[in-house]
């Protein structure tokens, strides 16, 4: 049970977002522009995967399942594919560029100063642009916020992982918004 009376029984981040709509609206806008906006050379699948990986490293059950299901939907894959990337992205069947970006995201998760010039050079050599590096760092940093918000308030999360998979197509179609939280 959440540490504070959220006055609603929605799971995960949806609870505090409804509790405090002044910040909920902004957090949704951030997720929308980082993860769903089409004006981006990183695919929605790649961006959701970065969020999933960071949430997994932060051990946030709700976020890694919500965004893992989103990535699974966009990749048109199964849960094993996503779980394999969480476990060891370096040996997963994904592009070298995405692996380089996940390595940067993994460093951000540990702390901003953990990102090294070598990691940036590697990503660049594999074709990553400044904007893609920027978005990777900010997505990883944003999930270090979202994950802490969800677990720091001890919100509840459905344990059946299929529930997250079933909701993903709707979220993919509608994007992230304060209005979409209650659906």
């Amino acid at each position, binding site marked *: 049970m959440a540490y504070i009376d959220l006055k609603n029984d929605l799971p995960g981040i949806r609870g505090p977002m409804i509790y405090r709509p002044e910040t909920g609206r902004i957090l949704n*806008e951030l997720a929308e522009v980082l993860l769903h906006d089409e004006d981006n050379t990183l695919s929605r699948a790649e961006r959701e995967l970065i969020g999933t990986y960071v949430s997994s490293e932060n051990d946030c059950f709700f976020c890694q399942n919500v965004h893992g299901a989103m990535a699974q939907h966009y990749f048109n894959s199964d849960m094993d594919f996503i779980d394999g990337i969480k476990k060891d992205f370096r040996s997963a069947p994904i592009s070298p560029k995405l692996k380089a970006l996940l390595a940067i995201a993994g460093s*951000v998760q540990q702390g901003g100063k953990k*990102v090294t010039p070598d990691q940036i050079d590697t990503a660049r050599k594999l074709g990553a642009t*400044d904007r893609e590096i*920027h978005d990777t760092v*900010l997505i990883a940093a944003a999930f270090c916020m979202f994950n*802490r918000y969800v677990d*720091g308030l001890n919100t509840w999360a459905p344990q059946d992982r299929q529930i997250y998979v079933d909701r993903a197509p709707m979220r993919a179609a509608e994007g992230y918004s304060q209005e979409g939280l209650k659906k």
Partner: protein
Amino acid sequence: MAYISVDKNLPGIRSLMAFRPETARPLSDLAEVLLRDETGLSRAEREMIGMYVSYLNDCFYCQHSHGELAACYLGGNRELVDAVKKDYRSADISGKLKALLQIAAKVQKGGKMVKPEDIEEARREGATDRDIHDTVLIAAAFCLYNRYVDGLASLTPTDMSTYAARAKQVVEKGYGPHIYAAAQPIPQTENVHA
């Protein structure tokens, strides 16, 4: 030098916001709501929580930017800001703020580090649900801002007088696109907090 090509005349998060205005908007809107709202927690208390998390994350730019902001709201009391960094438990602040700083410090380590006892202690000291919510989200948001600033190796000014000048600008006009779109404030020669 920053890892990506940003305006070299802009420091820290300002250079990153100018690079990507689409994400700058929610990031500055979030700071405006979390740090300038005065319901329950004062602006000084909110900036103090952000400063302390930035200090724990070893983010020089953020801890000094928000340390100066806290000092501004405290009438120039930098000594109190430094005392909180050194040991908030023995600093001359309320029991409530101490309990909230303890929650913030747990959030900095990870969401699951916050325990029911931490929440109960804050409640005993008079914290409301809303105060606890805002504390957790401020601490979490600084875990974002600090990683953003240092993860892209953005410029960290070493002239400390510039931090006071930027703080004065935010105290007067709040957080928003002006912090990177307008001319950067020029530090005053005399002590602005004298």
